[in-house]
């Protein structure tokens, strides 16, 4: 699996295993089986899914666990293209952080910005927090109704007509208007514009094209061409790794923190 590629970037060439087909099929079969199982459930957003994946493999939350479940997560998320846009953006955000974690696992020398490191750490903290609260919710579940203490029934009141000063036709109209305004608008919810997140596939495509035309370019140039937004950089970087895995691309980095150079092999010729 991709997880096992040794991460020696310094000057080394990354190649994927020679026979890419057999393990790939195997992995696909496993993923299909897992995804099928997962699909029986309803997930409450990306953290819920991610935590479930980690717990299912009985892993402790950490870089290694997250790198391991990244593929599962991506495969599952792909089927959620039709999610309300807000939700799919959240999936994409978590996916990009996961990919970052995974790429760091693949390439330990990869230098990350402080911000990137924070978002990786943050994801782990959030997962731990969710895991803790999930544990705690079991206490709540078992206590519910077990030994309830009842508040008294509504006390009988004898009405006395006591008109308050603030009741008038005007204040009541204002009241109902406020009520109407506060009702959640289902329509509005789904239509809210959410910052677009570049999809992984799109990025891979773009990466392929750019590399075919300009045989040699730096990763930094490449990401600059994509507006240099953090999410695009992450996705771009991972797209690159995917290509490396698939044997379509060679990558070099001359100095530990230096620019990463990308070169195509022969893009259209399978490498055996």
């Amino acid at each position, binding site marked *: 699996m991709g997880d096992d590629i040794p991460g020696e970037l310094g000057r080394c060439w990354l190649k994927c295993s020679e026979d890419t087909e057999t393990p790939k099929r195997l992995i696909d079969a496993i993923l299909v089986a897992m995804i099928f199982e997962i699909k029986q459930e309803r997930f409450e957003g990306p953290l819920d899914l991610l935590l479930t994946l980690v717990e299912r493999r009985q892993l402790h939350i950490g870089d290694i666990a997250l790198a391991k479940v990244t593929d599962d997560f991506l495969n599952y998320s792909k089927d959620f293209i039709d999610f309300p846009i807000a939700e799919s953006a959240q999936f994409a955000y978590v996916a990009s952080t996961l990919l970052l974690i995974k790429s760091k696992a693949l390439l330990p020398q990869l230098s990350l910005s402080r911000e990137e490191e924070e978002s990786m750490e943050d994801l782990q903290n959030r997962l731990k927090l969710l895991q803790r609260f999930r544990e705690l919710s079991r206490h709540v579940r078992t206590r519910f109704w077990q030994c309830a203490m009842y508040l*008294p029934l509504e006390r009988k009141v004898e009405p006395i007509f006591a008109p*308050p000063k*603030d*009741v008038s036709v005007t204040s009541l109209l204002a009241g*109902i208007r406020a*009520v*109407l305004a*506060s009702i959640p608008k289902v329509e509005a919810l789904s239509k809210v514009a959410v910052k677009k997140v570049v999809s992984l596939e799109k990025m891979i495509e773009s990466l392929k094209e750019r590399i075919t035309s300009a045989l040699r370019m730096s990763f930094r140039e490449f990401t600059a061409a994509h507006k240099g937004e953090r999410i695009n950089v992450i996705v771009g970087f991972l797209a690159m790794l995917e290509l490396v895995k698939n044997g379509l691309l060679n990558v070099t980095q001359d100095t530990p923190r230096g620019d990463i150079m990308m070169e195509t092999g022969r893009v259209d010729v399978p490498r055996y």
Partner: protein
Amino acid sequence: MELDNQIEAILFWRGEPMTLPELCRALKLPSADVKKGLQSLKEKLQGRGLVLIQTEDEYALATAPETHELIERLRKEELAKDLGKAALETLSVVLYKEKVSRRDIEYIRGVNSTTILRSLLMRGLVERRQSEKDERVFLYRPTIDLLSLLGITSAEELPEFQDVRTELAAAETAATVAGASLADGAGDGEDSVPSGLVPEHE
């Protein structure tokens, strides 16, 4: 658990008088035992803020006589207060809907409204009656006193009545969707709405 405590709990919870046979049924005990329990409760309540009162054959918990002045003052203060925003909103829902269940009010407002409805009832602004369609459901309506205070003969004379009704009908659908069930597999609409988290009988 001692019997007097059980009796205290029932009477407190009910908040209204119960007969000896009712107590016996509730406690599944013969009346001799229940009477003993009542006697012991009476003694235990000595020097407390509550007392056990007994009419010919009914028993109830009530506030101790020493607190009557205090309670009476509170009652008056409560009646003299302004309604405030939340209560006005609730009242406006009752008026513009003409009759409405507590459940529906809560769907529309998105908050539990028990306390506010009680205060509106107490002030004679709304009244509560069984629905003709379903005896288990209580509907809140504006009182005649309220309408005359507002200088109208029916709710339909309220400003923008028809518009508001149309908007409410549309909004209620939305609120039903948004206020989906708390159980897993949410979103099955009315059926799956847990009925009992708040006391049903209003």
